[in-house]
């Protein structure tokens, strides 16, 4: 299938995205956040919780004297290590226990601090690289099935039930398993600890839960002779920390959007921009494919009207991703099948939009989300809407395919629902496997005209955003019809300006590292 699109307009959109992101990147370069610092600690091996169940990374960062925070936790910790000769974890524990206080080491020279950390930084980078290489060799030995990669969610709230569900889904053909987070976790300014069995609408994202899933999927992958990928969510107040956990437990994808938290969770924009940048640098190095959340624009507003906004967001996400060092194939730009199914020719509109994205981002790992908003308790009709979504996906060669559930409007998926959803995808994608290669779109037809309309709308929107600047544009509700102010939203207090001497050893190491 081929869609003739205005390449100049595409070019222009990319330039605009560049112009929009540049100033934000300058802002990011001058700031850090508590979650970035906590991520640094996790990379240095700090983990566990205090007796008040406060995660150690939080305890340590909270223990930073206000005047030292601006230098970054690495310097402070490095100084303390130089003086005490303790390992990061031991030190963190004694700081949490108030046995040591940072103030005591304020005079220690920077050089000593850097020296003290050097080896640990090295080790952390190696650990991540090792996990990345491990994935590479597994993928080679246990090749995946042809794309679209069938992706399903598990969300029982109990990690052990999730494990059962994930293994069953893999056997039924799933190639990617996402563990959905419990509602509200994205608003927590810390990452819960240990295996969890209680959650609402999802299961908490903890490093222990990641490990439990990873082990189960590696095992079933071996039995099936194909690697099964694992996914979770970064976006929220702890993007950098979750990026670290994901790197260490060899997750393969992470939901990581540059604006989702701002627009859909009322998280402060500065916080989000800074966090997404560092978390994406980590994702890049870990070989993790990010998944962006454009689908969210469509669940809250009319999908036909929002199409240009989705495309605009894809351009912006792409730009932010490139700035963080992510190569195209690690950029899973989002889109979703959310046009009112009862609208005449809605299928044509969906095809237009999906094919447009495919041609504008040829090397990106496009992630296609299923119908959700228009799904109802009529599971029989819902199954059909999912079928047309499956057909669109295989026709337009999407890369990552999130299988729609017939019970979308009812409950988080049952084990049997997933089996039906996968059967649906397998059947449709098999019976119409090469349909996309068989047909040519009629020049000047509805599909082509719709694609042009969306692209033009996107260019116009990006022009406006570039004109006022991204932060102002968000305040002016240019995205998702919601207004968010730079000084409002959750987590602003966790944002701070970097001091002259600010040091994030991993930011440096990652910048140096070859992609």
């Amino acid at each position, binding site marked *: 299938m081929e869609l003739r699109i205005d390449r100049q307009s595409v070019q222009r959109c990319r330039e605009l995205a560049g112009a929009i992101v540049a100033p934000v990147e300058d802002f990011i370069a001058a700031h850090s956040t508590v979650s970035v610092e906590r991520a640094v600690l996790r990379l240095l091996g700090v983990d566990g919780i205090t007796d008040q169940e406060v995660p150690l990374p939080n305890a340590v960062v909270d223990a930073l004297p206000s005047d030292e925070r601006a230098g970054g936790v690495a310097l402070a910790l490095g100084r303390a290590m130089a003086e005490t000769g303790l390992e990061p974890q031991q030190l963190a524990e004694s700081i949490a226990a108030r046995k040591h206080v940072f103030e005591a080491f304020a005079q220690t020279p920077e050089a000593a601090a850097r020296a003290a950390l050097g080896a640990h930084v090295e080790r952390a980078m190696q650990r991540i690289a090792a996990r990345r290489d491990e994935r590479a060799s597994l993928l080679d030995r246990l090749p995946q099935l042809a794309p679209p990669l069938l992706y399903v969610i598990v969300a029982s*709230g109990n990690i052990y039930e999730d494990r059962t569900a994930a293994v069953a*889904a893999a*056997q039924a053909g799933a190639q990617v398993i996402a563990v959905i987070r419990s*509602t509200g976790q994205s608003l927590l300014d810390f990452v819960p600890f240990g295996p969890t069995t209680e959650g609402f609408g999802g299961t908490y994202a903890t490093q222990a839960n990641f490990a439990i899933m990873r082990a189960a999927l590696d095992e079933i992958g071996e039995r099936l002779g194909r690697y099964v990928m694992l996914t979770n969510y970064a976006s929220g107040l702890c993007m950098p920390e979750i990026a670290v956990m994901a790197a260490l437990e060899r997750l393969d994808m992470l939901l990581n959007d540059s604006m989702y938290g701002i627009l859909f969770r*009322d998280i402060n924009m500065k916080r989000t921009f800074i966090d997404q940048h560092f978390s994406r640098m980590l994702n890049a190095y870990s070989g993790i494919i990010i998944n962006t959340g454009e689908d969210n624009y469509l669940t809250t507003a009319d999908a036909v009207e929002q199409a240009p906004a989705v495309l605009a967001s894809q351009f912006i996400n792409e730009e932010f991703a490139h700035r963080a060092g992510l190569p195209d194939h690690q950029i899973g730009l989002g889109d979703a099948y959310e046009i009112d199914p009862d609208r005449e020719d809605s299928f044509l509109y969906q095809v237009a939009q999906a094919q447009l994205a495919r041609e504008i981002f040829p090397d990106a790992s496009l992630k296609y989300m299923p119908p959700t908003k228009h799904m109802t*308790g009529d599971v029989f009709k819902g199954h059909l809407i999912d079928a047309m979504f499956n057909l669109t996906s295989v026709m337009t060669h999407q890369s990552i395919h999130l299988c729609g559930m017939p019970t979308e409007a009812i409950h988080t998926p049952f084990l049997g629902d997933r089996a039906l959803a996968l059967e649906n995808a397998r059947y449709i994608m098999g019976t119409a496997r090469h349909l996309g290669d068989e047909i040519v779109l009629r020049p000047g037809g509805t599909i082509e005209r719709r694609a042009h309309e969306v692209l033009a709308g996107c260019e116009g929107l990006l022009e406006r955003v570039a004109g006022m600047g991204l932060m102002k544009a968000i305040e002016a509700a240019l995205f998702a019809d919601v207004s968010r102010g730079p000084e409002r939203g959750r987590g602003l207090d966790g944002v701070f300006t970097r001091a002259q001497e600010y040091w994030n050893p991993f930011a440096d190491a990652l910048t140096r590292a070859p992609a």
Partner: protein
Amino acid sequence: MTQLVRPYGDTQNDGKVQLSFTLPVPWSDAADEAARQLAVKMGLRDVQVVDGRPIATGFSFFVIYASTPQSVDVDAVTVPSTGAHALSMEEVDALVRERIGRKIRVAGACIGTDAHTVGIDAILNMKGYKGDYGLERYREFESFNLGSQVAVEELVSFAKERRIDALLASQAVTQKGSDIKNFTALSELLEAENVRDKVVLICGGPRVTNLLASELGYDAGFGRGTLPSQVAAFVAVTLAERFRQGRPHW
């Protein structure tokens, strides 16, 4: 007069139903038979296991058609009505002007950790739902939309502060009964703060029925496909009654 009805397949009273479920057993002829026996234990007759297949190691999926001997007397079925005498926006506004004489103050939110605001927005926002205007559009309503993930404490103190006449709580996430928990927490806190009788307390969401609402001690509950005007009418009429009867209000 009673009118007993049974499910209808292709003949009156044949009681035909379709059933599907997963059993945590490997598939085999015996598994099909187990599925059949389970259906029989559910009181079904002429049980046909029309499909049985493995969907994973240790799990099988079944599709069954059977007849139920059960029936319901539809004339005996009653649902507590939201008394929604369908009123237009203009009629509601007029009613408020006449019988209440001031604007009705309404506050809505998606409570607990639930972030599904589309539902409550559909009721409150100007735009409304399916061409039916939202409460913000009504002249005689002053409405506040507190948005998503609002703690019940927050909602209650807001209600007291602004002397809210009608509270609208929404829940879309029902897993592990979280919706019930949150709705209950809200009404209990209102009791505790002695304002329960001052507000028209309403809950809503895809799984809410008016029956459930009354069980939870709410004045009304609205489910799938609710239109804003139905809610506006209910609020206006109920409050007007309270004014007439001189029952408590702000």
